[in-house]
């Protein structure tokens, strides 16, 4: 098991946001966390990497409990995180953005170089010295993923990679994610766009009001319109 989360509870101030969230990601798997806006997808991700003030529960990453570790230590251990808002360093060039993400090679995880990433995202290669602030939303989304891959993670949390992107770019993003999977990367991706999730993921969890309310393979979900209707408001 690459990542195993159990009994995860999170809070913002006095507000209780996540309730006993449990989910697993196997090595080499792409798992989708589906749910509406505000259901708790981003909070789940932020809790796993330690970006919420208060979290309780067990978070096993490669067999090691990281639930008490600070963010940078968790990430240094090989767990990459791509936030929903992209959060590109707008004053830094594409190359410098990648430099911030750079970490040493890690055994058991695919190794990424700038050149290899430029092959994965050809658009970026043409704008190495452009400041991040002068890129379009789609290019920024690619850069934020490339930046996280520079840390040579073995698992990546991708928070809504298709949000706000044009259909064509979303398709490119799906191809990139499948390539990353082929390289041996494990991926947990949160999504609202069911069409997109269908293209990339093996298994899925549905989260609603901070609770996991369904889990199964993507194929099973296809046969359950009642579930989709009740929890995803499709």
């Amino acid at each position, binding site marked *: 098991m690459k990542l195993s989360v159990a009994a995860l509870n999170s809070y913002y101030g*006095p*507000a209780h*946001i996540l309730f006993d969230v449990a989910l697993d990601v196997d090595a080499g798997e792409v798992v989708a966390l589906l749910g509406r806006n505000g259901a708790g997808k981003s909070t789940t991700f932020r809790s796993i990497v330690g970006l919420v003030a208060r979290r309780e529960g067990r978070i096993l990453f490669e067999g090691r409990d990281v639930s008490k570790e*600070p963010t*940078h230590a968790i*990430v240094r251990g090989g767990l990459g995180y791509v936030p929903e808002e992209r959060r590109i360093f707008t004053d*830094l060039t594409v190359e410098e953005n990648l430099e911030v993400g750079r970490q040493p090679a890690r055994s058991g995880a695919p190794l990424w170089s700038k050149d290899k990433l430029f092959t994965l995202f050809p658009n970026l290669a043409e704008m190495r010295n452009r400041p991040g602030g002068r890129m379009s939303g789609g290019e920024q989304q690619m850069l934020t993923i490339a930046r996280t891959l520079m840390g040579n993670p073995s698992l990546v949390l991708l928070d809504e990679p298709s949000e706000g992107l044009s259909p064509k770019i979303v398709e490119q993003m799906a191809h990139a994610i499948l390539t990353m999977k082929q390289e041996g990367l494990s991926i947990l991706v949160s999504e609202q766009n069911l069409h997109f999730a269908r293209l990339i993921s093996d298994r899925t969890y549905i989260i609603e009001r901070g609770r996991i309310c369904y889990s199964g393979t993507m194929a099973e979900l296809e046969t359950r319109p009642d579930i989709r209707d009740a929890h995803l408001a499709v």
Partner: protein
Amino acid sequence: MSFYVVQFLTGLASAASLFLVASGLSIIFGVTRIVNFAHGAFYMLGAYLAFSLTERLSGTLGFWGGIVGAALIVALIGVVVEMVLLRRIYRSPELFQLLATFGLTLMVEDLVVLIWGPDDLLGRRAPGLRGAVDFFGQAVPTYDILLIVLGPVVLGALWLLFRRTRWGVLVRAATQDRDMVAALGVNQKWLFTSVFALGVFLAALGGALQIPRDAVNHTMDLRIIVDVFVVVVIGGLGSITGAFVAAVLVSELNAFGILIFPKISIILVFLVMAIVLIVRPWGLFGKPEAAARQTPGLSVRPWQPLSFNERLACVGALIVAAALPLLGSNYALIVGAEIAIFVIFAASLHFLMSVGGLASFGHAAYFGLGTYGVAFLAKFLGFPMIACLLLGPVLGLLGAMLFGWFAVQLSGVYFAMLTLAFAQIVWSIAFQWVEVTGGDNGILGVWPAAFVATPARFYWLALFVTAVSVTLLRVLVFSPFGYALRATRDSGLRSEAIGLNSKRIQWTAFVIAGTFAGISGALFAYLKGSVFPDNAGIALSVDSLVMVLLGGVETVSGAVIGAIVYKALSIWLVSYTDLSKLVLGGFIVLIVVAFPKGIVGTFGSLVDNGRLPFFKRALPGASQAEGAE
């Protein structure tokens, strides 16, 4: 001609230290988002330590070793401050950080006097650089030449550091988004500490390098910090190149201002700053501030109008307060009147801060203008007291109209720094224009009219004006204007999009707050019977901030409670200790770290959390509601 060239070179030499301190402030602000008020204190410590070290170490190596050693020691002190204090408040609102570092400054001022004494100290001259270079028949000190060269060298070194090293790239990344840097596996704690150490090192080096040129004394911190604020506002916060250009500009203005416009030399720099800000609100090299990420847990529960019972309680409290003359001594009545006056002062700032989101660091300017307004009318025109009380605050109103127009063009820390600078202008005029204001000797003999000449009657007058003022401010909060003001605070984008003229609304609020501050100043002049420049001083501005914060910014009753508690405490403190700055500074730091929500806010939270069920919903308190994601 050559005289002007030499004057120009002197200006350049002065710019070196100013640049070092300002660039340090800029670097620290960039990453930590803290405007380090204590930067002046570190500059001063650098000078004092360099003085002591160079006295003990001999020779050229000893001198330069002493200078660099002093800067290193202060940088270490900075590391300790960062780890012990600042790490606790990185998530606090910027205002709290500014206050905490101000508290630190107060403490250092008293400590420096304890260690080195109150007198000016003259440092050693640099060995080998004692002479002067002949420049078209005029002498330029060799040491100045060194400083002139040093400025660009440091600028170049910093540029290389930030552009060509991984550390520099990380720092620039953290300047934009520190959480994201952590999410990429960088330990930001050490990044912050190292940045703070570098910034403090630069400040202390700036101080240490001054000792062959200037005497070392315990007021140099506030003098430099005002100049540095002006430099970073002109150059643009966060820009090192901007700090350099602005340091040169300000130093040259100082050097030539004295020659060309000796009367207004102090104001000249501020005039230039005002012009720069109109043309480029974020400074010459600065960038528009990205909207600050909302700090979770600090959203305000919508204020509610008082219930019938609460109104009854307020009237009851007022009746009890009005009964004080039946019980208290004359001294108690004078203290009571002073507290009442400061309740108005604090409430006016609270209105601006909590409803308008505009944290003024120079609110004393309008208080001071109110006092002088009364003094001018009473002494020069011989107006009766009632007329003075009604017309005196008009000076505060006019000052707020003038300065407020500039100030509301900015927001956040820029607003804070600009209001501080304006207050310094008012203070400087009061201090320097001796013919009119009497300078440091003030204007004496402003006595109340016979009908309020007894302490009891004056107390009642003060209490009456206070009750009316606080009520008016409260009515304003719930009026359409109050809501429009809150709207501009909550979202400038949305307010403009629903047809609100944000700047005009904020300006109006600034004028209202300035006028009420003027009213409190007018009463204060009669209470004391005299008027001094310190009525517009930085210390008083900070007092008002502490009162508001002590009570709690995000509460309606905070200012009133805060003013009462703080004023009573400080009057008591001053009568018991000589080290009032040390104690007060420590107190401010403690409030910021331990009670970030203030008295009323903390009380409200306890109620909300069910720990004090008896008071359920009795007090408006801060709530921490935050939606998921």
